[in-house]
């Protein structure tokens, strides 16, 4: 089961990374993602309409991205809830869990992931027999090297599905929740977005810059490097603090000011370079639609309790986001 995670492209280097990334990139092309706009809007509307106050994370920000991934992979509607559990179990196994309950929780998570593995294998077998319009079908058809007819194997497809769920769920949940919180804390900017809904695209870039879902990435250094007088040697581990880079005063004027119309906005919440988030277009679309609807359809939105951040190094993640709404 751990091989499934060990071979993820996000933790691999070229040439293995180049091959997996190329194979996945075909399935993530712009048109396929843009085509999901209507479905995502319908999902968001359903969640927002049903929301009468309470924890905005458990009611909107958490279920949405898991359902979008299930939908994108062509899973039957009835199975969508299981994706949330698997995503939590993947996080537990990939990051490890602390505390006394550790061994037992880990064991339970592994059992869940074996079930997920079997589920994806069945879905893959089905799509091999009956291709669909979904991303799983596109991933199967993707050709890494047309001359060699290079395709993803079943094991690789299972691993890819798990990576998409792991990388695309919690991040997007936090992007929607953190954006909503930042707007609630900056009523002038919230009012600005309400008055000018067209601002949503630059607004989401700025909200990602201001409080993005991933605080820190890690890398092993492979070449002698000097940065601002500090030497770093091969074999050393470095932490790339995205949250700090996104508030760099040499890059951003008034970096601690939330300015929804900031342009240009070279924020790096999606990382940079060859590992830059492959789901960035999808994540942007989900966050834009969700934040736009939250702002528009929940006019009396207000904090109902002081939210707390989870004590996590890598992710910028709220325990809950309890709000009141008056329609």
């Amino acid at each position: 089961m751990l091989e499934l995670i060990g071979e993820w492209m996000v933790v691999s280097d070229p040439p293995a990374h180049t091959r997996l990334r190329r194979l996945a990139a075909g399935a993530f092309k712009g048109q396929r993602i843009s085509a999901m706009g209507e479905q995502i809007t319908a999902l968001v509307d359903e969640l927002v309409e049903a929301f009468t106050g309470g924890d905005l994370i458990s009611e909107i920000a958490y279920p949405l991205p898991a359902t979008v991934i299930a939908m994108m992979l062509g899973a039957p509607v009835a199975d969508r809830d299981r994706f949330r559990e698997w995503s939590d179990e993947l996080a537990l196994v990939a990051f490890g869990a602390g505390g006394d309950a550790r061994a037992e929780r880990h064991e339970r998570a592994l059992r869940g992931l074996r079930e997920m593995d079997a589920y994806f294998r069945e879905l893959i077998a089905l799509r091999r027999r009956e291709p669909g319009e979904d991303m799983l079908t596109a991933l199967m058809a993707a050709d890494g090297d047309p001359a060699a007819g290079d395709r993803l194997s079943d094991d690789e497809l299972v691993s890819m599905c798990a990576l998409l769920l792991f990388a695309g769920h919690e991040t997007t949940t936090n992007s929607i929740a953190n954006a909503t919180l930042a707007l609630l804390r900056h009523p002038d900017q919230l009012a600005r977005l309400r008055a000018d809904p067209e601002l949503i695209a630059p607004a989401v870039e700025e909200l990602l810059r201001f409080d993005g879902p991933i605080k820190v990435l890690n890398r092993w250094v492979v070449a002698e490097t000097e940065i601002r007088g500090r030497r770093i040697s091969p074999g050393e581990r470095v932490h790339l603090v995205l949250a700090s880079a996104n508030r760099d005063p040499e890059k951003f004027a008034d970096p601690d000011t939330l300015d929804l119309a900031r342009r240009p906005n070279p924020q790096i919440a999606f990382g940079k370079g060859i590992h830059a988030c492959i789901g960035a277009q999808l994540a942007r679309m989900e966050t834009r639609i969700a934040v736009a609807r939250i702002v528009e359809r929940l006019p009396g939105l207000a904090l109902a309790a002081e939210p707390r951040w989870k004590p996590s190094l890598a992710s910028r993640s709220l325990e809950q986001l309890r709000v009141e709404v008056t329609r």
Partner: protein
Amino acid sequence: MRIGVDPDVCEAHGQCSVVDLDLFPLDDDGHSAVGPDREVPPGEEGAARIGVDACPVRALRVLSA
């Protein structure tokens, strides 16, 4: 349609490649390998425009429609 990248401006954000890796290839460091002047295959103009617009530092340009 022709597109190009200014290598002095590119900061390897990779956002163009996320739109379409075939139209916007990267080098090993993650910088754009589009080159100064590249022809966009017919029918791909829409994706090319989205990719150019995705550059947060405006390193990419549409050279001719």
